[in-house]
Protein backbone atom coordinates (compact mmCIF):
# COMPACT_ATOMS: atom_id res chain seq x y z
CA UNK A 1 0.00 0.00 0.00
CA UNK A 2 1.30 3.48 -0.83
CA UNK A 3 1.84 5.76 2.17
CA UNK A 4 0.26 9.13 1.36
CA UNK A 5 0.54 10.89 4.68
CA UNK A 6 2.56 10.60 7.88
CA UNK A 7 2.89 12.63 11.04
CA UNK A 8 5.82 15.03 10.58
CA UNK A 9 8.98 13.84 12.33
CA UNK A 10 9.44 17.23 14.03
CA UNK A 11 5.92 17.44 15.46
CA UNK A 12 6.16 16.15 19.02
CA UNK A 13 3.84 13.32 19.93
CA UNK A 14 1.72 15.27 22.39
CA UNK A 15 -1.94 16.25 22.08
CA UNK A 16 -2.56 19.86 20.95
CA UNK A 17 -4.15 22.17 23.51
CA UNK A 18 -5.69 24.21 20.69
CA UNK A 19 -9.47 24.36 20.26
CA UNK A 20 -11.18 22.18 17.65
CA UNK A 21 -11.01 23.89 14.27
CA UNK A 22 -8.14 26.22 15.27
CA UNK A 23 -5.65 27.04 12.53
CA UNK A 24 -2.52 26.81 14.69
CA UNK A 25 -2.30 23.02 14.60
CA UNK A 26 -2.45 22.97 10.80
CA UNK A 27 0.20 25.69 10.53
CA UNK A 28 2.42 23.89 13.07
CA UNK A 29 2.12 20.73 11.01
CA UNK A 30 3.05 22.32 7.68
CA UNK A 31 5.94 24.18 9.30
CA UNK A 32 7.30 21.00 10.86
CA UNK A 33 7.09 19.25 7.49
CA UNK A 34 8.83 22.16 5.84
CA UNK A 35 11.66 22.46 8.38
CA UNK A 36 12.36 18.78 7.81
CA UNK A 37 12.09 19.01 4.01
CA UNK A 38 14.40 22.04 3.89
CA UNK A 39 16.78 20.32 6.29
CA UNK A 40 16.79 23.25 8.72
CA UNK A 41 16.31 21.31 11.95
CA UNK A 42 19.95 21.60 13.01
CA UNK A 43 20.07 25.40 12.88
CA UNK A 44 16.55 26.71 13.22
CA UNK A 45 15.41 28.71 16.26
CA UNK A 46 11.78 29.71 16.80
CA UNK A 47 10.35 32.50 18.94
CA UNK A 48 6.68 32.24 19.90
CA UNK A 49 5.65 35.29 22.00
CA UNK A 50 2.48 35.31 24.14
CA UNK A 51 -0.78 34.39 22.49
CA UNK A 52 -2.45 30.99 22.10
CA UNK A 53 0.69 29.82 20.32
CA UNK A 54 3.04 30.71 23.19
CA UNK A 55 2.99 26.95 23.82
CA UNK A 56 4.28 26.23 20.29
CA UNK A 57 7.51 24.98 21.88
CA UNK A 58 5.55 22.02 23.23
CA UNK A 59 4.88 20.87 19.66
CA UNK A 60 7.85 21.86 17.48
CA UNK A 61 10.79 19.55 18.11
CA UNK A 62 13.32 22.35 17.52
CA UNK A 63 15.13 24.93 19.68
CA UNK A 64 12.67 27.57 20.86
CA UNK A 65 12.49 30.36 23.44
CA UNK A 66 9.72 32.52 24.82
CA UNK A 67 9.75 36.25 24.29
CA UNK A 68 7.87 39.16 25.82
CA UNK A 69 4.62 40.17 24.13
CA UNK A 70 5.35 41.90 20.84
CA UNK A 71 9.12 41.69 21.11
CA UNK A 72 9.60 38.70 18.84
CA UNK A 73 11.26 40.64 16.02
CA UNK A 74 13.75 42.25 18.45
CA UNK A 75 14.59 38.93 20.10
CA UNK A 76 14.98 37.28 16.69
CA UNK A 77 17.24 40.18 15.65
CA UNK A 78 19.49 39.59 18.67
CA UNK A 79 19.66 35.87 17.89
CA UNK A 80 20.46 36.37 14.22
CA UNK A 81 23.08 39.06 14.83
CA UNK A 82 24.85 36.98 17.46
CA UNK A 83 24.53 33.71 15.54
CA UNK A 84 24.14 34.45 11.81
CA UNK A 85 24.24 30.78 10.83
CA UNK A 86 20.86 30.25 12.50
CA UNK A 87 17.56 30.33 10.64
CA UNK A 88 15.29 32.37 12.88
CA UNK A 89 11.54 32.74 12.81
CA UNK A 90 8.93 34.37 15.00
CA UNK A 91 5.44 32.96 15.30
CA UNK A 92 3.24 35.89 16.24
CA UNK A 93 -0.45 36.63 16.50
CA UNK A 94 -2.18 39.76 15.24
CA UNK A 95 -2.22 41.45 18.65
CA UNK A 96 1.43 40.65 19.09
CA UNK A 97 2.75 41.67 15.68
CA UNK A 98 0.28 44.39 14.66
CA UNK A 99 -0.43 46.12 18.00
CA UNK A 100 2.09 45.86 20.82
CA UNK A 101 4.95 44.77 18.53
CA UNK A 102 4.38 47.23 15.66
CA UNK A 103 7.61 49.14 16.21
CA UNK A 104 9.79 46.05 16.59
CA UNK A 105 8.29 44.51 13.44
CA UNK A 106 8.64 47.57 11.20
CA UNK A 107 12.17 48.36 12.31
CA UNK A 108 13.41 44.78 12.03
CA UNK A 109 11.98 44.76 8.51
CA UNK A 110 13.52 48.12 7.73
CA UNK A 111 16.96 46.94 8.78
CA UNK A 112 16.40 43.98 6.50
CA UNK A 113 17.03 41.57 9.35
CA UNK A 114 17.45 38.10 7.95
CA UNK A 115 14.53 36.70 9.90
CA UNK A 116 11.09 35.35 9.02
CA UNK A 117 7.87 36.40 10.71
CA UNK A 118 4.97 33.96 10.66
CA UNK A 119 2.01 36.23 11.33
CA UNK A 120 -1.21 34.52 12.37
CA UNK A 121 -4.20 36.76 11.74
CA UNK A 122 -7.44 35.52 13.29
CA UNK A 123 -8.91 38.99 13.89
CA UNK A 124 -9.18 38.53 17.68
CA UNK A 125 -7.07 38.16 20.82
CA UNK A 126 -7.59 34.43 21.20
CA UNK A 127 -5.77 33.50 24.37
CA UNK A 128 -7.29 36.24 26.50
CA UNK A 129 -10.82 35.36 25.42
CA UNK A 130 -11.71 37.08 22.18
CA UNK A 131 -11.10 40.80 22.59
CA UNK A 132 -10.75 43.21 19.67
CA UNK A 133 -7.50 42.84 17.74
CA UNK A 134 -5.96 45.50 15.52
CA UNK A 135 -7.13 43.29 12.63
CA UNK A 136 -10.71 42.89 13.88
CA UNK A 137 -13.04 43.68 10.98
CA UNK A 138 -15.48 46.58 10.85
CA UNK A 139 -18.70 45.69 12.69
CA UNK A 140 -17.17 42.47 14.02
CA UNK A 141 -18.44 41.63 17.50
CA UNK A 142 -15.77 40.80 20.09
CA UNK A 143 -15.82 40.93 23.90
CA UNK A 144 -14.48 44.50 23.83
CA UNK A 145 -16.55 45.57 20.81
CA UNK A 146 -19.86 44.15 21.99
CA UNK A 147 -21.75 46.43 19.57
CA UNK A 148 -19.44 45.59 16.68
CA UNK A 149 -16.21 47.41 15.80
CA UNK A 150 -17.18 50.98 15.10
CA UNK A 151 -14.42 52.36 12.88
CA UNK A 152 -15.35 55.86 13.98
CA UNK A 153 -14.35 54.99 17.53
CA UNK A 154 -12.08 51.95 17.32
CA UNK A 155 -10.37 52.63 14.04
CA UNK A 156 -9.95 50.31 11.10
CA UNK A 157 -8.60 46.79 10.69
CA UNK A 158 -4.90 47.39 10.17
CA UNK A 159 -3.18 45.94 7.13
CA UNK A 160 0.16 45.24 8.67
CA UNK A 161 1.57 43.22 5.76
CA UNK A 162 0.92 46.10 3.36
CA UNK A 163 2.55 48.52 5.82
CA UNK A 164 5.63 46.33 6.23
CA UNK A 165 5.83 45.93 2.45
CA UNK A 166 6.57 49.66 2.19
CA UNK A 167 9.89 49.41 3.99
CA UNK A 168 12.91 48.68 1.86
CA UNK A 169 14.42 45.87 3.94
CA UNK A 170 11.37 43.62 3.49
CA UNK A 171 11.92 41.31 0.52
CA UNK A 172 9.08 38.81 0.62
CA UNK A 173 5.56 39.23 1.98
CA UNK A 174 2.58 37.04 1.20
CA UNK A 175 -0.87 36.63 2.70
CA UNK A 176 -2.36 33.14 2.71
CA UNK A 177 -5.07 31.27 4.59
CA UNK A 178 -5.55 27.81 6.05
CA UNK A 179 -9.23 27.33 5.32
CA UNK A 180 -8.98 24.75 2.53
CA UNK A 181 -6.54 22.06 1.40
CA UNK A 182 -5.54 24.26 -1.55
CA UNK A 183 -4.90 27.26 0.70
CA UNK A 184 -2.95 25.13 3.17
CA UNK A 185 -0.67 24.02 0.33
CA UNK A 186 -0.22 27.65 -0.74
CA UNK A 187 0.63 28.56 2.85
CA UNK A 188 3.33 25.93 2.96
CA UNK A 189 4.74 27.20 -0.33
CA UNK A 190 4.78 30.77 0.97
CA UNK A 191 6.62 29.82 4.15
CA UNK A 192 9.14 27.88 2.06
CA UNK A 193 9.76 30.99 -0.01
CA UNK A 194 10.08 33.14 3.11
CA UNK A 195 12.63 30.79 4.66
CA UNK A 196 14.48 30.64 1.35
CA UNK A 197 14.75 34.46 1.30
CA UNK A 198 16.40 34.23 4.71
CA UNK A 199 18.71 31.39 3.65
CA UNK A 200 19.70 33.43 0.59
CA UNK A 201 20.56 36.35 2.91
CA UNK A 202 18.18 38.72 1.13
CA UNK A 203 16.28 40.44 3.94
CA UNK A 204 13.13 40.35 6.04
CA UNK A 205 10.31 38.00 5.08
CA UNK A 206 6.80 37.72 6.42
CA UNK A 207 3.90 35.35 5.79
CA UNK A 208 0.51 36.48 7.08
CA UNK A 209 -1.87 33.57 7.53
CA UNK A 210 -5.62 34.08 7.92
CA UNK A 211 -6.48 31.47 10.48
CA UNK A 212 -9.83 30.37 11.89
CA UNK A 213 -10.75 30.88 15.55
CA UNK A 214 -14.14 29.14 15.80
CA UNK A 215 -14.24 29.49 19.60
CA UNK A 216 -13.97 33.27 19.71
CA UNK A 217 -15.84 33.79 16.47
CA UNK A 218 -18.71 31.75 17.96
CA UNK A 219 -18.85 29.57 14.85
CA UNK A 220 -18.47 25.94 13.90
CA UNK A 221 -15.14 25.05 12.29
CA UNK A 222 -16.85 24.81 8.91
CA UNK A 223 -18.56 28.20 9.31
CA UNK A 224 -15.21 29.73 10.29
CA UNK A 225 -13.60 28.39 7.09
CA UNK A 226 -16.41 29.96 5.09
CA UNK A 227 -16.16 33.24 7.02
CA UNK A 228 -12.52 33.56 6.01
CA UNK A 229 -13.51 33.25 2.35
CA UNK A 230 -16.63 35.38 2.44
CA UNK A 231 -15.69 38.13 4.90
CA UNK A 232 -12.07 38.16 5.96
CA UNK A 233 -10.43 37.94 2.54
CA UNK A 234 -12.41 40.96 1.38
CA UNK A 235 -10.52 43.09 3.90
CA UNK A 236 -7.33 41.02 3.70
CA UNK A 237 -6.95 39.79 0.09
CA UNK A 238 -4.78 36.71 -0.38
CA UNK A 239 -1.68 36.68 -2.53
CA UNK A 240 1.89 37.90 -2.80
CA UNK A 241 2.12 41.46 -1.47
CA UNK A 242 5.81 41.98 -2.16
CA UNK A 243 8.44 39.81 -3.75
CA UNK A 244 11.78 41.28 -4.67
CA UNK A 245 13.71 38.10 -3.96
CA UNK A 246 14.45 37.74 -7.68
CA UNK A 247 16.17 41.12 -7.83
CA UNK A 248 19.60 41.87 -6.52
CA UNK A 249 18.78 45.46 -5.57
CA UNK A 250 16.39 45.55 -2.64
CA UNK A 251 14.20 48.25 -4.19
Amino acid at each position, binding site marked *: MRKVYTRPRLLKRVPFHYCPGCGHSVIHRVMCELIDEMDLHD*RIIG*IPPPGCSVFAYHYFDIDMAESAHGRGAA*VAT*GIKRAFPEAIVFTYQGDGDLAAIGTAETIHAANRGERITAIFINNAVYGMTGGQMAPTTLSDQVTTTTPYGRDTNIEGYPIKMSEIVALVRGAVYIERTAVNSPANIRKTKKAIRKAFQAQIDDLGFSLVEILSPCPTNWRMTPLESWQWIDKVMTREFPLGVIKDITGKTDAD
Partner: protein
Amino acid sequence: MNGNSTIAEAAIRAGCQCYFGYPITPQNELTEYMASHLSRKKGCSFIQAESEIAAINMVYGASLVGARAMTSSSSPGISLKQEGISYLAACELPAVIVNMSRGGPGLGSISASQSDYFQATRGGGHGDYRTIVLAPSSGQELADLTHRAFDLADKYQIPVIILGDGMLGQMMEPVEFKHEAPEELPIRSNALRGAKGRPSRIIKTFTSKPAELEEINWSLFRRYQLIKKEETACETFLVEDAKLIVVAFGIAARIAKGAIKNARTNGLKVGMLRPITLWPFPSEKVKGLAKKTRHFLVFEMSMGQMIEDVQLALEGKGEVSFYGRPGGVIPTPSEVFRVVSRLYHQKGLESAK
Protein backbone atom coordinates in the same frame (compact mmCIF):
# COMPACT_ATOMS: atom_id res chain seq x y z
CA MET B 1 39.12 58.93 29.00
CA ASN B 2 35.50 59.74 29.91
CA GLY B 3 33.62 57.22 32.04
CA ASN B 4 31.14 56.20 29.37
CA SER B 5 33.91 55.34 26.88
CA THR B 6 35.77 53.53 29.65
CA ILE B 7 32.83 51.19 30.19
CA ALA B 8 32.57 50.56 26.45
CA GLU B 9 36.27 49.76 26.06
CA ALA B 10 36.24 47.54 29.16
CA ALA B 11 33.20 45.70 27.80
CA ILE B 12 34.95 45.02 24.49
CA ARG B 13 37.96 43.75 26.41
CA ALA B 14 35.64 41.51 28.44
CA GLY B 15 34.57 39.88 25.17
CA CYS B 16 31.28 41.71 24.71
CA GLN B 17 30.10 40.61 21.26
CA CYS B 18 26.80 42.42 21.00
CA TYR B 19 25.80 45.91 22.01
CA PHE B 20 22.29 47.23 21.42
CA GLY B 21 21.41 50.72 22.58
CA TYR B 22 19.30 53.80 22.13
CA PRO B 23 20.47 57.40 22.53
CA ILE B 24 19.88 59.10 25.87
CA THR B 25 21.93 61.67 27.75
CA PRO B 26 24.19 61.40 29.77
CA GLN B 27 25.45 58.06 28.43
CA ASN B 28 25.72 58.66 24.67
CA GLU B 29 29.52 58.38 24.56
CA LEU B 30 29.12 54.72 25.47
CA THR B 31 26.83 53.98 22.52
CA GLU B 32 29.02 56.06 20.20
CA TYR B 33 32.17 54.27 21.33
CA MET B 34 30.53 50.94 20.57
CA ALA B 35 29.48 52.23 17.15
CA SER B 36 33.11 53.13 16.41
CA HIS B 37 34.87 50.16 17.99
CA LEU B 38 32.49 47.19 18.11
CA SER B 39 30.29 47.49 15.01
CA ARG B 40 32.99 46.47 12.51
CA LYS B 41 34.70 43.92 14.75
CA LYS B 42 34.60 40.34 13.47
CA GLY B 43 31.84 38.26 15.03
CA CYS B 44 30.38 41.29 16.79
CA SER B 45 27.22 43.29 16.33
CA PHE B 46 26.10 46.83 17.12
CA ILE B 47 22.57 48.11 16.56
CA GLN B 48 21.13 51.49 17.37
CA ALA B 49 17.72 50.10 18.18
CA GLU B 50 14.33 51.69 17.59
CA SER B 51 13.65 51.82 21.33
CA GLU B 52 15.03 50.87 24.73
CA ILE B 53 12.54 48.02 24.77
CA ALA B 54 13.81 46.66 21.46
CA ALA B 55 17.43 47.05 22.63
CA ILE B 56 16.99 44.98 25.79
CA ASN B 57 15.07 42.34 23.83
CA MET B 58 17.91 42.15 21.31
CA VAL B 59 20.22 41.58 24.28
CA TYR B 60 17.85 38.80 25.38
CA GLY B 61 18.08 37.23 21.91
CA ALA B 62 21.87 37.43 21.80
CA SER B 63 22.09 35.95 25.29
CA LEU B 64 19.81 33.07 24.26
CA VAL B 65 22.40 31.94 21.72
CA GLY B 66 25.28 32.34 24.18
CA ALA B 67 26.83 35.68 23.24
CA ARG B 68 28.14 38.21 25.75
CA ALA B 69 25.69 41.06 25.30
CA MET B 70 25.19 44.48 26.77
CA THR B 71 22.94 47.50 26.66
CA SER B 72 23.22 50.86 28.34
CA SER B 73 20.94 53.74 29.09
CA SER B 74 20.02 56.31 31.69
CA SER B 75 17.12 56.38 34.14
CA PRO B 76 14.02 56.91 31.94
CA GLY B 77 15.41 54.43 29.43
CA ILE B 78 16.17 51.91 32.16
CA SER B 79 12.52 52.05 33.22
CA LEU B 80 11.61 50.94 29.70
CA LYS B 81 14.08 48.07 29.83
CA GLN B 82 12.59 46.56 32.99
CA GLU B 83 10.30 44.22 31.05
CA GLY B 84 13.27 42.66 29.32
CA ILE B 85 15.34 42.49 32.50
CA SER B 86 12.55 40.53 34.18
CA TYR B 87 12.56 38.04 31.28
CA LEU B 88 16.36 37.74 31.41
CA ALA B 89 16.19 37.05 35.15
CA ALA B 90 13.36 34.56 34.69
CA CYS B 91 15.09 32.63 31.93
CA GLU B 92 18.43 32.71 33.79
CA LEU B 93 20.23 34.55 31.02
CA PRO B 94 23.44 36.53 31.52
CA ALA B 95 23.52 40.15 30.35
CA VAL B 96 25.11 43.43 31.38
CA ILE B 97 22.91 46.52 31.70
CA VAL B 98 24.48 49.91 32.38
CA ASN B 99 22.48 52.71 34.00
CA MET B 100 24.30 56.05 34.00
CA SER B 101 21.51 57.47 36.06
CA ARG B 102 20.13 60.97 36.01
CA GLY B 103 17.63 63.02 37.98
CA GLY B 104 14.05 61.83 38.16
CA PRO B 105 11.17 61.12 38.40
CA GLY B 106 9.75 61.53 34.92
CA LEU B 107 12.00 62.99 32.29
CA GLY B 108 13.78 64.67 35.21
CA SER B 109 17.15 66.22 34.48
CA ILE B 110 20.30 65.08 32.72
CA SER B 111 22.43 65.73 35.79
CA ALA B 112 23.85 62.93 37.95
CA SER B 113 21.56 61.33 40.51
CA GLN B 114 21.29 58.18 42.61
CA SER B 115 17.53 57.94 42.73
CA ASP B 116 17.36 54.62 40.86
CA TYR B 117 18.72 52.67 43.85
CA PHE B 118 15.38 51.04 44.70
CA GLN B 119 14.68 50.16 41.07
CA ALA B 120 18.12 48.59 40.64
CA THR B 121 18.33 46.66 43.91
CA ARG B 122 14.74 45.39 44.16
CA GLY B 123 14.61 43.70 40.77
CA GLY B 124 13.05 46.65 38.99
CA GLY B 125 10.56 44.79 36.82
CA HIS B 126 7.66 42.49 37.67
CA GLY B 127 8.14 39.28 39.59
CA ASP B 128 10.24 37.88 42.39
CA TYR B 129 13.83 38.37 41.28
CA ARG B 130 17.04 40.27 41.90
CA THR B 131 19.94 41.31 39.73
CA ILE B 132 23.52 41.82 40.84
CA VAL B 133 24.13 45.58 41.11
CA LEU B 134 27.65 47.01 40.93
CA ALA B 135 28.34 50.61 41.93
CA PRO B 136 31.64 52.00 40.61
CA SER B 137 32.94 55.26 42.03
CA SER B 138 35.93 56.07 39.80
CA GLY B 139 37.12 55.76 36.23
CA GLN B 140 39.35 52.82 37.15
CA GLU B 141 36.49 51.08 38.86
CA LEU B 142 34.25 51.61 35.85
CA ALA B 143 36.77 49.56 33.87
CA ASP B 144 37.32 46.89 36.52
CA LEU B 145 33.68 46.41 37.45
CA THR B 146 32.56 46.28 33.82
CA HIS B 147 34.89 43.36 33.30
CA ARG B 148 33.68 41.79 36.51
CA ALA B 149 30.05 42.31 35.49
CA PHE B 150 30.44 40.04 32.45
CA ASP B 151 32.13 37.34 34.52
CA LEU B 152 29.48 37.47 37.24
CA ALA B 153 26.68 37.40 34.66
CA ASP B 154 28.11 34.25 33.11
CA LYS B 155 29.01 32.61 36.41
CA TYR B 156 25.53 32.96 37.90
CA GLN B 157 23.51 33.18 34.62
CA ILE B 158 21.99 36.41 35.79
CA PRO B 159 21.59 39.97 34.51
CA VAL B 160 24.08 42.36 36.13
CA ILE B 161 23.39 46.07 36.49
CA ILE B 162 26.19 48.61 36.57
CA LEU B 163 24.69 51.55 38.43
CA GLY B 164 26.73 54.64 37.64
CA ASP B 165 25.55 58.21 37.15
CA GLY B 166 25.86 61.06 34.72
CA MET B 167 28.88 62.50 36.49
CA LEU B 168 30.90 59.28 36.40
CA GLY B 169 29.96 58.95 32.75
CA GLN B 170 31.21 62.40 31.81
CA MET B 171 34.27 62.64 34.05
CA MET B 172 37.71 62.31 32.40
CA GLU B 173 40.14 60.13 34.35
CA PRO B 174 43.23 58.07 33.59
CA VAL B 175 42.41 54.37 33.39
CA GLU B 176 44.47 51.23 33.10
CA PHE B 177 42.81 48.36 31.25
CA LYS B 178 44.01 45.12 32.74
CA HIS B 179 42.67 42.74 30.11
CA GLU B 180 43.03 42.15 26.39
CA ALA B 181 39.93 41.16 24.46
CA PRO B 182 39.75 37.35 24.25
CA GLU B 183 40.26 35.77 20.81
CA GLU B 184 37.26 33.54 21.25
CA LEU B 185 34.91 32.77 24.12
CA PRO B 186 33.45 29.33 24.76
CA ILE B 187 29.74 29.02 23.91
CA ARG B 188 27.59 28.51 27.00
CA SER B 189 26.56 24.87 27.15
CA ASN B 190 22.84 25.64 27.53
CA ALA B 191 22.66 28.14 24.66
CA LEU B 192 20.15 27.78 21.85
CA ARG B 193 22.20 26.94 18.74
CA GLY B 194 19.81 24.69 16.82
CA ALA B 195 19.16 21.10 17.88
CA LYS B 196 22.17 19.63 16.09
CA GLY B 197 23.11 16.22 17.49
CA ARG B 198 21.15 16.78 20.69
CA PRO B 199 17.49 16.93 21.79
CA SER B 200 15.73 20.22 21.08
CA ARG B 201 15.84 22.79 23.84
CA ILE B 202 13.26 25.24 25.20
CA ILE B 203 14.07 28.39 27.15
CA LYS B 204 10.97 29.74 28.87
CA THR B 205 9.20 30.29 32.16
CA PHE B 206 5.57 30.43 31.14
CA THR B 207 3.58 27.54 32.52
CA SER B 208 -0.01 26.75 33.35
CA LYS B 209 1.14 24.96 36.51
CA PRO B 210 1.87 27.29 39.47
CA ALA B 211 3.91 24.58 41.23
CA GLU B 212 6.30 24.51 38.26
CA LEU B 213 6.84 28.27 38.47
CA GLU B 214 7.24 28.05 42.22
CA GLU B 215 10.11 25.63 41.65
CA ILE B 216 11.75 28.09 39.22
CA ASN B 217 11.42 30.82 41.86
CA TRP B 218 12.96 28.62 44.54
CA SER B 219 15.82 27.75 42.25
CA LEU B 220 16.46 31.46 41.58
CA PHE B 221 16.24 32.18 45.30
CA ARG B 222 18.85 29.53 46.13
CA ARG B 223 21.19 31.12 43.63
CA TYR B 224 20.56 34.55 45.15
CA GLN B 225 21.53 33.14 48.57
CA LEU B 226 24.76 31.85 47.08
CA ILE B 227 25.50 35.22 45.47
CA LYS B 228 24.91 36.96 48.80
CA LYS B 229 27.41 34.63 50.42
CA GLU B 230 30.08 34.77 47.71
CA GLU B 231 29.94 38.11 45.97
CA THR B 232 29.16 40.88 48.46
CA ALA B 233 31.82 43.59 48.18
CA CYS B 234 32.53 46.90 49.88
CA GLU B 235 35.33 49.31 50.71
CA THR B 236 36.01 50.74 54.15
CA PHE B 237 37.97 53.96 54.78
CA LEU B 238 39.31 54.99 58.20
CA VAL B 239 36.69 53.01 60.13
CA GLU B 240 38.99 51.55 62.80
CA ASP B 241 38.66 54.37 65.33
CA ALA B 242 35.63 56.10 63.77
CA LYS B 243 32.93 57.52 65.99
CA LEU B 244 30.84 58.34 62.95
CA ILE B 245 30.72 56.29 59.75
CA VAL B 246 29.42 57.76 56.52
CA VAL B 247 27.72 55.21 54.26
CA ALA B 248 27.73 56.25 50.62
CA PHE B 249 28.08 54.60 47.21
CA GLY B 250 29.27 55.60 43.75
CA ILE B 251 30.01 59.25 43.10
CA ALA B 252 28.54 60.24 46.49
CA ALA B 253 31.26 58.15 48.18
CA ARG B 254 33.85 60.06 46.19
CA ILE B 255 32.41 63.35 47.44
CA ALA B 256 32.15 61.99 50.99
CA LYS B 257 35.79 60.90 50.95
CA GLY B 258 36.86 64.51 50.46
CA ALA B 259 34.67 65.58 53.35
CA ILE B 260 36.05 62.82 55.59
CA LYS B 261 39.67 63.76 54.85
CA ASN B 262 38.81 67.33 55.81
CA ALA B 263 37.10 66.09 58.99
CA ARG B 264 40.17 64.08 59.96
CA THR B 265 42.45 67.09 59.59
CA ASN B 266 40.03 68.85 61.93
CA GLY B 267 40.38 66.05 64.45
CA LEU B 268 36.99 64.45 63.85
CA LYS B 269 37.08 60.64 63.87
CA VAL B 270 34.96 59.95 60.81
CA GLY B 271 35.21 56.93 58.51
CA MET B 272 33.33 55.58 55.53
CA LEU B 273 31.72 52.41 54.29
CA ARG B 274 31.22 52.22 50.54
CA PRO B 275 29.13 49.33 49.23
CA ILE B 276 30.52 48.16 45.87
CA THR B 277 27.75 45.63 45.39
CA LEU B 278 24.43 47.33 46.13
CA TRP B 279 22.75 43.98 45.70
CA PRO B 280 23.83 41.94 47.49
CA PHE B 281 24.14 44.71 50.11
CA PRO B 282 27.05 44.36 52.57
CA SER B 283 24.69 43.99 55.54
CA GLU B 284 27.06 41.81 57.57
CA LYS B 285 29.80 44.43 57.24
CA VAL B 286 27.47 47.20 58.43
CA LYS B 287 26.39 45.03 61.34
CA GLY B 288 30.03 44.32 62.20
CA LEU B 289 30.96 48.01 62.19
CA ALA B 290 28.10 48.75 64.59
CA LYS B 291 29.92 46.77 67.27
CA LYS B 292 32.44 49.60 67.59
CA THR B 293 30.67 52.58 66.06
CA ARG B 294 27.23 53.76 67.07
CA HIS B 295 26.62 56.63 64.67
CA PHE B 296 26.03 56.29 60.94
CA LEU B 297 25.35 59.01 58.40
CA VAL B 298 23.86 57.79 55.13
CA PHE B 299 24.65 60.19 52.32
CA GLU B 300 22.90 59.77 48.97
CA MET B 301 22.06 61.85 45.94
CA SER B 302 18.37 61.05 46.44
CA MET B 303 15.69 61.50 49.10
CA GLY B 304 17.06 58.41 50.86
CA GLN B 305 16.84 54.91 49.43
CA MET B 306 19.95 52.97 50.50
CA ILE B 307 19.25 54.21 54.04
CA GLU B 308 16.60 51.47 54.28
CA ASP B 309 19.21 48.78 53.66
CA VAL B 310 21.49 50.34 56.29
CA GLN B 311 18.63 50.39 58.81
CA LEU B 312 17.73 46.79 58.00
CA ALA B 313 21.37 45.74 58.43
CA LEU B 314 21.71 47.54 61.78
CA GLU B 315 18.58 45.94 63.23
CA GLY B 316 18.14 48.97 65.46
CA LYS B 317 21.64 48.65 66.92
CA GLY B 318 23.02 51.94 65.61
CA GLU B 319 21.79 55.48 65.18
CA VAL B 320 21.20 56.43 61.55
CA SER B 321 21.14 59.98 60.23
CA PHE B 322 20.63 61.03 56.64
CA TYR B 323 21.79 63.72 54.26
CA GLY B 324 20.63 63.73 50.66
CA ARG B 325 20.28 65.99 47.62
CA PRO B 326 17.75 64.76 45.05
CA GLY B 327 16.94 65.90 41.55
CA GLY B 328 20.40 65.91 40.03
CA VAL B 329 21.98 68.41 42.42
CA ILE B 330 25.65 67.58 43.04
CA PRO B 331 26.68 68.30 46.64
CA THR B 332 30.23 69.50 47.27
CA PRO B 333 32.73 67.93 49.69
CA SER B 334 32.67 71.10 51.82
CA GLU B 335 28.88 70.89 52.05
CA VAL B 336 29.11 67.29 53.25
CA PHE B 337 31.91 68.30 55.64
CA ARG B 338 29.59 70.88 57.22
CA VAL B 339 26.89 68.22 57.64
CA VAL B 340 29.39 65.77 59.13
CA SER B 341 30.85 68.22 61.64
CA ARG B 342 27.43 69.54 62.67
CA LEU B 343 26.22 66.01 63.31
CA TYR B 344 29.47 65.17 65.13
CA HIS B 345 28.95 68.06 67.52
CA GLN B 346 25.20 67.53 67.91
CA LYS B 347 25.79 63.96 69.00
CA GLY B 348 28.57 65.05 71.36
CA LEU B 349 31.08 62.73 69.70
CA GLU B 350 34.17 64.83 70.65
CA SER B 351 33.75 63.81 74.24
CA ALA B 352 32.46 60.29 73.57
CA LYS B 353 34.85 57.44 74.29
